[in-house]
């Protein structure tokens, strides 16, 4: 095993007794300090994979190693080194915030003055001081998520597993959580494996991404490289009037036949970097006396990537 790899998943399969083949022989590694995402619609096998990593589900075949420990045979060591936040913020509804964090600190074997130190640290890290004596059901969804993270982090785990961490949160809380996860990665060097069906989340947060469909990984790379597989950026020009045949020929000569696409009062030009090339391309078009009404840079999205590899739009499935 490469020492930089915190997670190694080999030929992992999960077949439920009901006959559902949820995970079909997937392989991936996660490097230390990386945020690794699993993108796919509901039912793709993301949660099943994460639950097997977190020792919550038995593995049908294959293996998962976390920090060198086999999840099936060294489950106790695995549990001591991971933090796991489930899809729903699963919290003790009969506790206050402080009681819950204290309980989790004790669960990980801390005793004496260290308990209070760690509780205070967790309250500060997740900005929960003002809620410390509140009962958990009284908290908002976003605060419950933060608390869920707080109790998952009390023991400074080497790996944080997050199953759809922002599902059910409003956009503002979602962005807050993204900042927090980035902070955890940058300040604490924590490795994160997360699932999501939000493309923006995957794009903004993940260093690498596995696209999952029907229990199989169909593509895996950085979000940027995955998007590159779709093709170039495109600059769209909206026109006052349709292009003449002469103008189309001139554009093809200038930008290349394959980079040009025309449709009534629109045309697009393929470029490597849309934002960088926009001004120069616009100058050329103006010099060609084409009257431009507006422009737009179109970049390949992860949904385009998903469409390419699965034939389906993730937006339609989620």
């Amino acid at each position: 095993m490469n020492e930089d790899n915190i997670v190694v998943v080999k030929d992992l399969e999960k077949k439920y007794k009901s006959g559902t083949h949820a995970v079909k022989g997937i392989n991936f590694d996660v490097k230390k300090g990386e945020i690794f995402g699993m993108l796919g619609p509901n039912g793709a096998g993301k949660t099943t994979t994460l639950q097997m990593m977190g020792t919550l589900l038995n593995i049908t075949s294959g293996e998962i190693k976390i920090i060198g420990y086999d999840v099936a045979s060294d489950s106790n060591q695995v549990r001591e080194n991971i933090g796991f936040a489930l899809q729903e913020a699963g919290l003790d509804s009969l506790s206050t915030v402080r009681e819950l964090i204290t309980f989790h600190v004790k669960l990980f074997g801390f005793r004496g003055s260290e308990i209070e130190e760690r509780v205070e640290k967790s309250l500060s890290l997740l900005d929960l001081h003002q809620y410390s004596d509140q009962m958990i059901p009284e908290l908002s969804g976003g605060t419950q998520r933060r608390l869920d993270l707080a109790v998952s982090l009390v023991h400074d785990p080497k790996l944080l597993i997050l199953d759809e961490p922002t599902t059910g949160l409003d956009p503002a809380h979602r962005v807050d959580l993204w900042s927090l996860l980035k902070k955890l990665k940058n300040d604490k060097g924590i490795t994160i494996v997360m699932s999501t069906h939000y493309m923006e989340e995957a794009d903004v947060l993940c260093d690498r991404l596995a696209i999952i469909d029907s229990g199989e990984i169909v593509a895996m790379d950085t979000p940027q490289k995955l998007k590159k597989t779709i093709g170039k950026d495109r600059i769209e020009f909206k026109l006052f009037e349709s292009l003449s045949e002469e103008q189309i020929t001139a554009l093809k000569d200038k930008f290349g036949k394959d980079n040009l696409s025309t449709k009534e009062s629109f045309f697009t030009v393929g470029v490597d970097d849309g934002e960088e090339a926009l001004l120069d391309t616009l100058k050329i078009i103006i010099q060609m006396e084409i009257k431009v009404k507006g422009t737009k840079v179109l970049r390949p999205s992860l949904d385009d990537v998903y469409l390419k590899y699965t034939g389906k739009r993730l937006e339609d499935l989620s």
Partner: protein
Amino acid sequence: MKFSTILTLYVRNLKQYKRLPAVLAFSFIVPVIQYLIFSNLFNSLSDVPGNPYGDYPYYMYITPAIIILTAIFGSVNSSAALLVDLNTGYFDKLRATPASLAPQVIARFMSEFTRLSLQLFLIITVSILYHRRISGVLELPEAGILGLIAIVLLAASFGIGVVGNLVVALAFKTKSEQAVQAVFPLFFVAVFMSTAYVPDVLLPDWLQSAIVYNPSEYLIRAVRGIFLEGFTDSTMDSVTIAVSCIIVLTTITSTINYRTITRSID
């Protein structure tokens, strides 16, 4: 599996009860009310000719029945806190920590056993105080403190071992409070179809034949023997049969419970 983990969970479970006052009240108040109503309603049963327990006031005769009923009531409610954890997803969250499956289940049974034992001591205290009110004498049963401890251990072991295991299995299977509570009448009927309220010779013939198949009957005989007669030879025979019965039934219900729980993670 570390003992310190189980202990941490056990203490947390005990602290949970203060936030579940309805569970505590329901499993305690109902048997007390039944004790007070039945002991007054059927007071004259002691005077029925042929009653082998005619020497004892009826409220003393039914005290063991109320103890067993408290054990069963309390054990059916033992899934309440567990269901809260199962339905909020917190049980699974804990499973990804050192509090994996086995420590959580063991700690849950330990805390339920503690709670139930306290409730049983309380109901025994009520019966002693009621006896004082009626007779004017404050006295312990024949078997003394040791006898009371034996009664509590027997009843709590039956409650948690047999009833508790079944309701916990049901809780894992259904995750529904209603489904778990629905089994209560079964145990309630089982207690009624025994000598809990009426001595065997006064029962109809068919019931006299049927009570030998009722496990709760053996427990009632042992508890009644200790409570009314002390540790006599015949009481010790009843205790031996009751303990054997608890061991066999707990083994069966634990196996059912184990299979149900392990299936839930497969």
